[in-house]
């Protein structure tokens, strides 16, 4: 039971970062491998606000999101705006950005990783289903559920969501209707970046902040997107929960294979559903 809860809580952290990445790939066709680095930037900014300055945690989340959004705008305007449809170049450039941002955070915050954040009210434990469980994990799950519901509503029940969905299925048609799809997509890139930054602060409660997150977290987020299928919020949620659960459960059931059990699960799912769980295919 504890392993399942652990998997779900890790799944929700990954959902927060993977959902933004999934939408960016799905709506814009941009492979932004620096998405994990935006998570890292958010985590470090959150550390400064919540731990160094001692300000409220909600403010740390806002600041982390804003900082990552600002970096996202920069990355989009400097690089991705000029690399539309050039997937190889996008991958190479964004991978370079990961290294740049990792060096920048080490320059600004020092080379030592930051310990998990201690936040009044979120430290300690609660009784959950008869188990003593970390309050921070319960908070993360709650945020993930609220955030997932909000994203689903935005995507399925609003005009903007309809444009995004239509843009994924048939961008040419959306443009012929006079909709500035590039603006919508750019806005989505910024929102996705902000969500990654906010996820970094929230994830900092249990994982702290490390320069290696740019790659470590990105790897898991990519698996979430591949499993869930690009552009699908429910798909990202299911993918994230699969990743989280396979990570947590394999430690208990197959400890010697926990390092690669996730990839076995991924391989099996992709054999059965090559386009991921949601079945959506990217349209260029």
């Amino acid at each position, binding site marked *: 039971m504890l*392993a399942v809860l652990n998997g779900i809580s890790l799944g929700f952290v990954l959902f927060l970062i993977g959902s933004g990445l999934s939408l960016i790939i799905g709506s814009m066709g941009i492979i932004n491998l620096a998405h994990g680095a935006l998570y890292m930037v958010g985590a470090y900014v959150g550390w400064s606000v919540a731990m160094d300055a001692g300000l409220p945690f909600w403010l740390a989340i806002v600041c982390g999101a804003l900082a990552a959004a600002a970096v996202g705008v920069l990355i989009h305007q400097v690089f991705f705006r000029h690399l539309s449809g050039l997937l190889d170049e996008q991958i190479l450039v964004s991978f370079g950005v990961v290294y740049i941002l990792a060096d920048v955070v080490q320059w600004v915050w020092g080379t030592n990783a930051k310990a998990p954040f201690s936040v009044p009210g979120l430290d300690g434990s609660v009784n959950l289903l008869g188990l003593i469980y970390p309050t921070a994990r319960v908070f993360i799950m709650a945020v993930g559920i609220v955030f997932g519901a909000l994203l689903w509503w935005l995507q399925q029940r609003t005009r903007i969501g309809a444009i995004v969905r239509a843009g994924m299925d048939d961008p040419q048609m959306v443009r012929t209707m006079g909709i500035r799809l590039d603006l919508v997509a750019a806005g989505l890139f910024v929102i996705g970046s902000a969500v990654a930054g906010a996820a970094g602060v929230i994830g900092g409660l*249990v994982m702290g902040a490390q320069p290696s997150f740019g790659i470590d977290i990105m790897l898991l987020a990519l698996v979430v997107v591949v499993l869930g299928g690009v552009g699908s919020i429910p798909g990202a949620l299911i993918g994230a929960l699969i990743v989280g659960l396979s990570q947590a459960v394999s430690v208990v059931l197959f*400890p010697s294979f926990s390092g690669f059990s996730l990839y076995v699960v991924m391989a099996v799912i992709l054999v059965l559903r090559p386009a991921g769980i949601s079945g959506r295919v990217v349209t260029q």
Partner: protein
Amino acid sequence: MDCTPALRNRTPRRRLLALALAVVVALALTSACSSGTGASDDSGPLKVGILWPFNGAYSNYGPDGLAGTQLALQEAGMKVSGRTIELVKGSEDVLDPANTLREAKRLVQQEGVTIMIGPVFGSSQQAVAAYFKTTNVMAFVPFGNTKELAGRGNFIGWPTLDTSFSTPLGGYMADQLHYKSIATLAPDYVYGHNVLVGATQTFTQAGGKVVQQQWVPLGTTDLLPYASNLDRNADALVMWLVPQDAASFVKSFRSLGIKMPIIFVNGVFDPTFQSMGSDIVDSLGIVDWSAGLTNAANKTFAADFAKANKGQVPNNQNAAAYVDTKLALATIEKAGGSTSFEELKKAVTQVKLDTPYGPGHIDENFLGVTSRTIVKAVHQGSRYVWEPVKTFDNVPNEL
């Protein structure tokens, strides 16, 4: 016109001959340079290299190591056996041993280094091992000292062989703490496995039982599953993780309401220790060195380091590089100022030093023999420190 084909045939042959000659000359020159590198050139400044990570992953180690080495050199007046010392910096690449090898070659071939402080990480040491052997470089290395590199003389492993690091802990747990069973946790790579070997072997020999060993794969971001999967029937958890992972694990461990004692192999390094100290107050650990050790050499080192570094408290990297450098200088001194590899090999095992770790020397396998101390995490003033509980001197290396 008739002779053209013949000319055409001869010209490539001549070119080939010229090329072959050039290659032979180049090889001869390289060979001469190589043998010259390792041979003693006992006049002029002595170049000492420091090959620690200054960029990329673990780039905090480089400046820390440099500060320790500089202090040792300053204490020696930048001289050894009457020769001026010139320190040359190179950057170890923790993630790419091939880059470390390139940097080692630069230090040796271009800078003329024959004595090296570092590299630090086991993978880097493996990468440069063959090269150091052919060029007769002597490297004084902290951490990551494996059996495979022992005994050659190219690597002087201070403070100890990694599999012997925690040797005194097993008997201490069985005899003093009366533990019957332990669980362990460490990263799933060579050092993680090796650093627990001493403790688990001696604990088992003393009648204890290791009921669970969890190995954390590289790149694991969430350590809660390892806390929740812990066998709670064990009397204690013995663990080593890099500081930030240790902090993350302990937080998860405590928030699951687990009361089991944790014993930290190698303690937890600063600055992470300072940020997580309240979670582990009264926990025990085993260390080779900590700022809280009370031997006279450590007090002098801490005072001198603080004086040279704006009041800073030294950390493990500072101490390791400091002692590695002191050892290197004492070895050269013992060899009468010679940097001949064979003479250095003879000299290094004759050196005896009072170090911040405790009294120490180098054994016949070129590994450090020094003290290990059982420590307890306590809050002292505004800082957390590892307070000495019991010291074991002259802990041997078990190959």
